[in-house]
């Protein structure tokens, strides 16, 4: 793990959302390295590649073409190699079903995409600064969904 910056990866098929995401981190005063991928297939190709630098926090959109967020989540959780990656679900929907399913399959936090840029920045900054060790040990269904 590199001490200088937090390595962040986002998989989202929506160009606007990727733009908001990278813009938000640019404006935040946190040293981060942000990489984005256009869908689940690109993401998994990267993660599985030999020279991949595994991210500290992975943001996963659920609704993506080819390979959706849920499939990615299952693949990542099935592989020991990715055990240290904190996974944040980053979705438009906040349906009970999606929250429950991703929680069961081992995601660490669920973020409903905010409708306001300030809120987005706040959410992202909170997520990347979480003490994951602490958060994960006390994880339950109530604090799984990030409340702003």
């Amino acid at each position, binding site marked *: 793990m590199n001490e200088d910056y937090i390595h962040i990866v986002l998989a989202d098929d929506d160009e606007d959302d990727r733009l908001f995401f990278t813009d938000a981190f640019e404006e935040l005063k946190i040293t981060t390295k942000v990489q984005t991928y256009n869908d689940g297939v690109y993401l998994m190709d990267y993660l599985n590649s030999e020279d991949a630098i595994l991210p500290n926090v992975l943001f996963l959109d659920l609704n993506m073409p080819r390979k959706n967020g849920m499939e990615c989540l299952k693949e990542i959780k099935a592989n020991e190699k990715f055990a240290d990656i904190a996974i944040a679900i980053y979705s*438009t*929907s906040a349906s009970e079903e999606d929250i429950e399913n991703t929680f069961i399959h081992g995601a660490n936090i669920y973020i409903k*995409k905010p*409708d*306001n*840029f300030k809120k987005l920045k706040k959410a992202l900054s909170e997520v990347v600064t979480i003490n994951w060790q602490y958060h994960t040990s006390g994880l339950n269904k109530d604090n799984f969904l990030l409340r702003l």
Partner: protein
Amino acid sequence: MPLKSIYRAPWFVKAVFVISFFLIFFVAGVTYKNMSDLSDSSDLVTEKYEVAIELEQILSYLKDAETGQRGFVIIKDSTYLEPYFSGRENINNSLAELKELIKDEPEQGQNLIELNFLIDNCLANLEQVQRFILKEQNNINSPAFEPLFARGKKIMDQIRAKIKVMLDVQNKKLEINQKEYENNLKVTPIFLYLLMLLSLLLLIGAYFKIISNLKKLEASNQALELFKESANQSEIVSKHGNWTWNIEKDTFSFSDNLYRLLGEEPHSFAPTIANFMKFVHPEDLEKLSAQVEEMKENENLPFIYYRVIHKNGTIKHLKAYGKVVVSGENRRNLLGTTTDITDEIESFRALEKRNLELERNNKELSAFNHVASHDLQEPLRKIQTFLSRLEDKEEDNLSESGLKYMSRIKNAATRMRLLIDDLLQFSRTNKADKVFEVSNINLLLEGAKQDLAEVIARENATINADAFPVINVIPFQIQQLFANLIGNSLKYKSEDRTPEINITYEMVKTESEKLLTNATADSYHKIEFKDNGIGFDNEYAERIFVLFNRLHNKDEYTGTGIGLSICKKIIENHQGFIFANGETGVGATFTIYIPVV
């Protein structure tokens, strides 16, 4: 009423005829006996007179002989002896006659023998007198004559006495017989008369009974006729036909309408199984034949379904049911009913089709609702996010009207967000996977209050609630319902007073609630939310539950017109009812009924 019950007994007429038969038989027998008794006794009388006549005749012959002899003694002319000579023969004839008459009576027989002896003596004496006259030359003064004469008189007296004895015996016998006969005659006629009267009465009773039976028979015949007609009618109306199958003789009888079910005129063909099978749909023929065979063996069978084809090509669906009925000496009859269920099947199919369509429509609608609200969220969220960035970064560069437009766009986007969120919630309420749990309603109300804690605090609202029992409900939906109703009351609060909501609970019987007109359960949990808000005109009491229906302009009150529709949906999910009652300026009352299970 033993008499009446005897009269009503079915064996009454039979019994009367048997009794009457024996009575008449008896009377005939007794009468016959009486008649023969009567003839016996008249025979006896005749016999007595004949005996008397013969005896008198004997006496008269003897007297003639004696008189003739006396003449002979006086005149000494032998012609006077004529009666004596003829007398002998006549007396013998009479004696023979007598003997015949009294041959059954030993006593009289003895008397007759004695009489005969006396007569012989008498005649012998007369002969002696004659000889004496001839020998002594009419010397009637001779001393020897006198004893002869005297002896003749003595014998005559004895004969008279004997005849009297014989007549007495005969008389006595007649008397006894007469008495017996009279006795009989005194009692039997009354007895016979009574017997005849009795059997007459019985026969009259039987006659009335037969008449009334006939009337009843006629009445029941008429009723039967009517019943037959109505059975015919009902067969036609309900499209069913009856048939009877005598299994032993292998004969059938079909009711009129069974022919009609096959599209034929009644009795237009012989009722046989072969003729019937001609109408059966080829695909069903094998199955039906097997089932018919099975019918003969089993007492009870399930319904048989098959199709028939009319001569004009119409296919009809029939349903048949048969039952073996054993009557008399093992006579096995299969009684069957066949019903035309074509309409039923067609309407069932139509219903099924429409149900499927409806289900598909519902699914589509639900999917559309869900997808629309989900997919609508994404562009809206981006609009809002871009707007927020525009506001942050470019606010200083915008003119006053630009700022105004941006504010309008923001309002419109916020409203759209509200609509989408409510729609999403409404579609979630529609979901089929509702899990009922026995829930603490008090906790659900607390949950709803917590959801609205901010507003309640801001409005300084008072909420009073009764204690609730546990009720079997879908918990999150009921909490949603409570939150919506409280939220509704707070939104439409009166400006003049602090909001107060009173929530009351009562368990009620269906019949005591005027509002429950088409309720299915016997009793209901009744929960009432009463507020002191602005209320509404009762004219709209039903409309407020309709989706997207609003009573107020959205400039006055924000809202989507979905909240109360969700309430109604939730209550319908619980097979309950919700009613609104308002008074403008005073407040609104929402009444909820949830069935007690």
